[in-house]
């Protein structure tokens, strides 16, 4: 790893224009007496250049006083609090330290540097995000970088007060102590190169997946690390590398969510003589503040778990949101004909527009009932009720997700069965590329599976969609599928639902060349 510098004159000009605009807006807001109405969500979206910003949204419980955040005028779009490059951190903790303690202290330090309450930063989602990221970086477990779980390299900074030994731009260096490691990492994560990470981590509503998205944000707002990231693997194209790297981070988030107690309770090495054998790691679960099932030890944590600001049952417009709106979050064996309400609505609209929906030949099947909170209920349904089954179809579902999410409004423009869908994808090399998939870790959100290969027994008999782990609460699901049936056997009717990727090695795979938005809006999933 090496430090790269590059000119961002053009980007800086754009940022300056944007910051000037934001500054004017802030002044205007102050003048009308609502200077404190800028929520942490708003700051988050401003800094990450996402559509999350909603000037009418006041639901966040932890607003950031805009006057606490000082905008830099040096061209950096990230809001860097003054003095972020200095200071000390005193956790007051004693050995042995576990990984979770490092993450919590780091979040507290970041909150302090950004001038927000610690409770905004110390959420389990943020701890999971950091734990997953550190796990992939070594986490000071399997290398000799003590108190440096992220391989943090204080690029261009003077960290002599914190580093133990020589400074290394590669990040393979140790810090003097647990607290020195926390402080050094907090400085970097609130600094001008990686500051977008700190911004994400003080938004109480941001998720671990948001953190990964922020990590992989190569927009002009995220200066510095893009060419360096490219340099990490010059043999792969930027898009491919970024996607694979991002998917690996998302897998780690799923792993950290699932195996939280085991990963978070690892005792950090205190000297290079401590074993780096993954089989010999020591654990101390008694110190854990959070647990895999989402519970916490509130007396020990001076931060409360955040509460979602989302609307019950609401979903946004991203690809992942559309999947969550249309598909049940768990697998149900066929026959299962109950549709998620949003999918039933979408199918009715598609039929009116004379679009392909597949499935039965009559009317739309009934949608699920809603509970008192408006959440769809997955009650037992064995396709015995009167009704028809249009839209209960593998290719009909894939078509709807791609079209309705606007990821590809023309998907399956031939409005037909799987062979026609395959013809569409394979005849648009500017939109989709044929890819090789052998293992679950190869799969990327947006991947489209077509059954078999030319000449195989059931070539083009089935299709499904990969959405990535983390789309659904149960981390084992990485795909969504639906299945049709007919009088042929009548047992495999399944409305769209979460699935595990099957026949990975036997299928023909295509991946979209356009971005797939895996951002998930807050909201309550179906039960």
């Amino acid at each position: 790893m090496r430090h790269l510098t590059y000119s961002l004159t053009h980007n800086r000009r754009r940022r300056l224009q944007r910051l000037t605009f934001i500054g004017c807006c802030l002044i205007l807001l102050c003048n009308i007496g609502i200077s404190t109405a800028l929520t942490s969500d708003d700051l988050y979206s401003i800094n990450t250049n996402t559509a999350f910003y909603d000037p009418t949204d006041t639901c966040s419980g932890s607003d950031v006083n805009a006057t606490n955040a000082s905008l830099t005028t040096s061209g950096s779009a990230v809001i860097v609090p003054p003095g972020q490059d200095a200071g000390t951190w005193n956790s007051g903790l004693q050995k042995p330290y576990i990984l979770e303690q490092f993450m919590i202290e780091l979040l507290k330090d970041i909150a302090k540097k950004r001038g927000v309450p610690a409770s905004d930063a110390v959420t389990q989602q943020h701890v999971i995000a950091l734990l997953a990221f550190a796990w992939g970086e070594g986490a000071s477990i399997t290398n000799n970088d003590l108190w440096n779980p992220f391989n943090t390299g204080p690029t261009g900074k003077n960290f002599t007060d914190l580093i133990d030994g020589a400074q290394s731009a590669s990040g393979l260096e140790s810090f003097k102590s647990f607290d020195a490691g926390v402080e050094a990492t907090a400085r970097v994560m609130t600094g001008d190169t990686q500051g977008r990470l700190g911004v994400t981590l003080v938004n109480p509503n941001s998720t671990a997946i948001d953190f990964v998205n922020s990590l992989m944000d190569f927009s002009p707002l995220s200066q510095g690390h893009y060419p360096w990231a490219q340099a990490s693997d010059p043999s792969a194209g930027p898009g491919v590398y970024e996607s694979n790297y991002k998917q690996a981070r998302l897998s780690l988030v799923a792993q950290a969510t699932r195996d939280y107690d085991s990963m978070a309770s690892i005792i950090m090495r205190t000297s290079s003589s401590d074993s780096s054998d993954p089989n010999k790691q020591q654990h101390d679960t008694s110190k854990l503040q959070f647990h895999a099932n989402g519970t916490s030890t509130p007396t020990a944590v001076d931060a409360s778990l955040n509460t979602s600001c989302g609307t019950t049952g609401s979903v946004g417009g991203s690809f992942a949101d559309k999947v969550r709106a249309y598909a049940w979050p768990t697998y149900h064996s066929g026959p299962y004909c109950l549709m998620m309400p949003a999918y039933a609505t979408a199918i009715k609209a598609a039929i009116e527009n004379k679009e392909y929906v597949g499935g039965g030949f009559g009317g739309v099947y009934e949608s699920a009932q809603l509970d008192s909170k408006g959440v769809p209920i997955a009650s037992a349904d064995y396709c015995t009720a009167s009704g028809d089954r249009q839209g209960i179809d593998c290719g009909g579902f894939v078509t709807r997700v791609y079209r309705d999410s606007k990821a590809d409004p023309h998907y399956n423009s031939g409005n037909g069965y799987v062979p026609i869908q395959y013809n569409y994808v394979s005849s648009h090399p500017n939109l989709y590329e044929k890819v090789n998939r052998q293992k679950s870790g190869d799969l990327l959100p947006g991947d489209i599976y077509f059954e078999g290969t030319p000449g195989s027994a059931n070539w083009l008999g089935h299709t499904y969609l990969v959405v990535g782990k983390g789309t659904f609460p149960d981390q084992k699901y990485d795909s969504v599928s639906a299945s049709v049936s007919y009088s042929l056997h009548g047992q495999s009717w399944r409305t769209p639902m979460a699935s595990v990727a099957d026949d990975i090695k036997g299928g023909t795979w295509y991946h979209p060349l356009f971005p797939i938005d895996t951002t998930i809006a807050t909201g309550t999933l179906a039960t």
Partner: protein
Amino acid sequence: MDQPKTQKIIVIVTILFVGILCTLFVMTFLSHHGKAKVQVTLIPSDSTLTVDGKKTKAGTVYLTKTTHTLKVTRPPFSPTSKTINFVTYDTSKVVYLLPSPVSKAALQYLINHPDVQAQREAVGDLQSDQAQQQLSKNKLIGLLPYSGPGGTYTVDYGTLTQQDGTQKVTIYIESNTSQDKQAALTWITNHKIDPKTLTIVYESLPADANPNNGGSEYQ
């Protein structure tokens, strides 16, 4: 014509008829005895079926409990075949045989006959549903992919549909040292799964996988 003679003829004919029926029953019983009763469905239904090279009528087929190759042909589709061991095959499951739509003419046939493609998709979807039921019972793959600390090893899985419709699950362990390989096996064992019961393929880690070697987006 006297009545006793007529009655005698009726009795003889009845005995002969019953005898023939019994003989047919016994012959059928003997010919089916010890064989697997298999339901074979062809899509399109006017396709031709051969079993071990002999032309056979689709529907209920009795096959000796050994391995047989069932082949389906139907121009303009490409022939396909399934070789199935009927010792272990679950005969409650229908054997679907579908010639492959490789040629443009075959694809055009399916476009012109959407009812046939609908049936093909019903078979594919049924198979997918059976795969989901099988995979949902696999405790290990729900935990995968797993990355050891620092990316020192990874455990992952691949799936492949077999000719009998089941999913073959292969476990992949990537590591660069025997210590890391052992760590991966220990991780599996810690989940109360005996690695000896798994089909495991051992591979080296990709060069850029280990962040200590430079694969990272963070600096």
